[in-house]
């Protein structure tokens, strides 16, 4: 009773996708009757994140839930936390193997490269041969892995098909339009989250390509769900962030209270959300989905 | 000189935090006269005329304008009342054109429907002609003030004050950085302006410049008046002594042959 868990993410303050994580975390804490805290580096600097993990460890919580956005940077602090008796669960980024290596209890998430690869294969099956990857956060390694995985899944070189779109919606929109104007034979568009997907939807709408061009995206959001049901987006890869925050809280609490532990890692994604299976997703997108 | 004073300042005090800059100064200025304000560095001359011009609010004392008590809340108020000032640090903006500087704060307005525009044509014409009256031929009214010489800038400032129909014109050390010719120019301008009935307050460290145009002389020392004398009542040497506070002057003067 009264355990304290800290979730550390690599996302900058302003990244909206992480709300679902925060909400899942809060709900988990409430239901299990434990204290939960969310921490993140304000600018998304991974080196700052390492300090936050150290600092979370110093405050002696019962468990730390963290992403493993860069193994090199974060493995040291995580290992220290593990060795000083704090249970750690890796979520969202990194791989199960890396999680084991740092001594974490388990891994809950979606390996980014694999997810991209699976999406690429699916698109290849749908007859896609070239694509545009709209990368709104190019400095983040996971984002590049998604694009790379997609390209490898398609079996084409990534080349210049990934653009650094920036984070301003109007710039994203216009850059997508510029790219598609300059490369009219592009078969598909891949976006990496609501930040890039929402303006891309508008861009395609402007160009009259909405519904015409093959469009897939990572991570869900309100507009994305709407676009899926409108048939503009073929599929969204849902890694179910809610689970990534909620399950570790449940697992940790039960482990601390009763010593029970699932026997394996949990893959929260990739799940392809298509127009056929929207239902609840539409209502809760951006909050719990 | 029995006319009524335009401005009368009575017992003005001004404190800046711990510094007492003025400690009870009285002064008045009448139409058509040139009243010289003299005194050591830091005596409080600039502070005093800034009080007169509405830049500082006096800590104590009163200002009578045309016989009535006045409170200037801003330099604008003082300007509206007819007090124009040419400051020691020139009050010209080098990056701006002569016309814009000339009219700064009192731009001529031309109405187009409900909109008010600045009337550049009129502004330019007046600037050129006023400058010509002062003996300066501008290349163009759009010339930046930064391209003018020090004497020319001084003249622009005086010309604008005169043009705006000042009743009192305050000049803070207008000649200190000027050459002989430019100085003579400024002094004769003062003389010309005085003859139009405007009262002039002229601050200088140079007794000869003061004697050349002054009708009355007031000496400040450490924030207090040492007294006011009319032209003819005082010799240049006496004035000089008074300005220096009488200290050590004998010795210095001796060694330098009395030529300072």
């Amino acid at each position, binding site marked *: 009773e009264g355990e304290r868990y800290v979730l550390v993410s690599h996302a900058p303050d302003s990244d909206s996708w992480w709300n679902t994580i925060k909400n899942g975390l809060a709900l988990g804490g409430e239901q299990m009757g434990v204290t939960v805290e969310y921490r993140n580096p304000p600018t998304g600097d991974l080196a700052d994140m390492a300090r936050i993990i150290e600092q979370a460890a110093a405050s002696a919580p019962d468990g730390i839930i963290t992403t493993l956005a860069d193994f090199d940077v974060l493995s040291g602090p995580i290992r220290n936390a593990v060795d000083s008796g704090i249970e750690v669960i890796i979520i969202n980024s990194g791989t199960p193997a890396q999680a084991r290596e740092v001594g974490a209890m388990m891994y809950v998430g979606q390996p980014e490269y694999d997810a991209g690869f699976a999406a690429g294969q699916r698109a290849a099956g749908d007859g896609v041969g070239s694509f545009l990857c709209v990368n709104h956060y190019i400095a983040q390694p996971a984002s590049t892995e998604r694009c790379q995985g997609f390209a490898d899944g398609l079996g084409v070189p990534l080349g210049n098909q990934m653009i*650094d*779109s920036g984070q301003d919606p*109007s*710039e994203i929109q*216009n850059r997508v339009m510029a790219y598609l104007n300059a490369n009219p034979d592009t078969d598909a568009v891949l976006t990496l989250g609501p930040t890039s997907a929402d303006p891309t939807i508008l861009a395609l709408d402007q*160009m009259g390509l909405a519904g015409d061009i093959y469009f897939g995206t990572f991570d869900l*959001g309100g507009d994305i769900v709407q676009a899926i049901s409108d048939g503009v987006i073929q599929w969204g890869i849902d890694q179910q962030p809610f689970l990534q925050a909620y399950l570790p809280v449940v697992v940790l609490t039960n482990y601390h209270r009763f010593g029970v532990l699932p026997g394996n890692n949990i893959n929260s994604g990739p799940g392809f959300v298509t127009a056929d299976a929207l239902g609840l997703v539409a209502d809760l997108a951006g909050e719990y989905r | 000189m029995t006319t009524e004073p335009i401005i009368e300042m009575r017992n003005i005090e001004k404190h800046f935090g711990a510094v007492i800059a003025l400690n009870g100064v009285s002064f008045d200025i009448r139409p058509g006269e040139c009243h010289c304000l003299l005194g050591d560095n830091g005596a409080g001359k600039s502070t005093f005329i800034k009080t007169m011009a509405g*830049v500082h609010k006096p800590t104590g004392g009163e200002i009578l304008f045309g016989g009535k008590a006045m409170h200037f809340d801003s330099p604008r108020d003082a300007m509206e009342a007819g007090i124009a000032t040419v400051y020691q640090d020139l009050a010209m903006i080098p990056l*701006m054109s002569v016309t814009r500087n000339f009219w700064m*704060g009192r731009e001529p307005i031309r109405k187009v429907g409900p909109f008010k525009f600045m009337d550049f044509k009129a502004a330019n014409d007046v600037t050129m002609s006023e400058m010509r009256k002062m003996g300066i031929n501008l290349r163009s009214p759009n010339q930046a003030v930064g391209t003018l010489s020090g004497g020319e800038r001084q003249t622009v400032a005086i010309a604008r004050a005169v043009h705006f129909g000042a009743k009192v014109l305050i000049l803070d050390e207008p000649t200190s950085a000027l050459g002989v010719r430019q100085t003579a120019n400024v002094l004769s301008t003062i003389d010309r302006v005085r003859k139009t009935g405007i009262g002039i307050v002229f601050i200088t460290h140079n007794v000869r410049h003061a004697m050349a145009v002054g009708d009355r002389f007031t000496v400040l020392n450490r924030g207090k008046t040492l007294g006011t004398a009319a032209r003819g009542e005082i010799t240049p040497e006496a004035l000089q002594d008074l300005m220096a506070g009488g200290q050590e002057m004998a010795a210095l003067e001796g060694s330098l042959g009395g030529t300072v």
Partner: protein
Amino acid sequence: MSNPDATVDERIKETSKLRKALIRPELGAIVGTIAVFAFFIIFAGDSGMFNAQGVLNWSTVSAQFMIIAVGACMLMIAGEFDLSVGSMIGFAGMSIAIISVTLGWPIWVAIILTFVLCIAIGALNGIIVVRTGLPSFIVTLAFLFILRGFTIFFPQLIERRTIIGGISEAAEGDWLAPLFGGKVGGGFFIWLGDLGVIEVFSRGTRAGQPVVDGIPMLIIWALGLVAIAHIILTRTQFGNWIFAAGGDAQAARYVGVPVNRVKIQMFMFTAFCACVFATCQVIEFGSAGADRGLLKEFEAIIAVVIGGALLTGGYGSVIGAALGALIFGVVQQGLFFAGVESSLFRVFLGVILLFAVILNTYIRRIITGER
């Protein structure tokens, strides 16, 4: 002893008439604009950059920059600058979203309240700068952090998320929203499309419609603001005061220019421009995010400086700033059209900034007699 012809100073060597005619604050920006267009016409002429859609594309981006550049330009001429513009954009968008979506008030109320709020914050910035005499760099840097902090904090507190959507629905049928998010001249473009002057969509849901279906209000706002600011600056009394406040605040104060008021009003105008930017964006995209407007303050300052304004105030031109914004937008989009690796955009931007500013300094020195 001296030259009898006093109007000609024998110590000044001659300068050509042509050079004199060309020498104006905007010259650097004009040269830059020509160079940039020439460059892209050569290297991206056939990439669709100069067809109707392409033109609209970079015009929209440039218009965005222009809106904030106008505010930054006026403020910079008045001798201050505002690093909180970017945060203000995020803050304003979020404010509209919270008022309209969360509180459920009509969108026009949300827009008006947000404008009032932002302008008040601009005034607060200005009052602090003017009262304390601190450099505006520091004061507005503080507000950069404070506003961004609130922009992230409030929606999380209230809505448990940092992106609030659903504004499009709220804006439907509203009388004020189209002023920011609409398009004008639709009929004209359909006519052009029918004439074949501009292309029509060949596939997709809108096949047969013209590729450009109107001019976004964003562009109208940008042009309007540029025109009004230019007229105010060059043709009115208030414009003269703005120059005076930035050129030498003390001197201006002495001749009765209400310098403090002018500066505070310019801070308010900058906030107004940021708010216009934010409102257009929110209405167009239908959502507000806590990360909107990041680094926009720098982009505004860069456009203004490319446009020939002096960082220390008292000198500059709105037209120049608008051209600076145009250069900025064209380069940014043009590199995509030209197929240059997009991360190199930043490198280009830095280099252009350096060259523009060196050219501008040279021109300014000739004009103002500075040394």
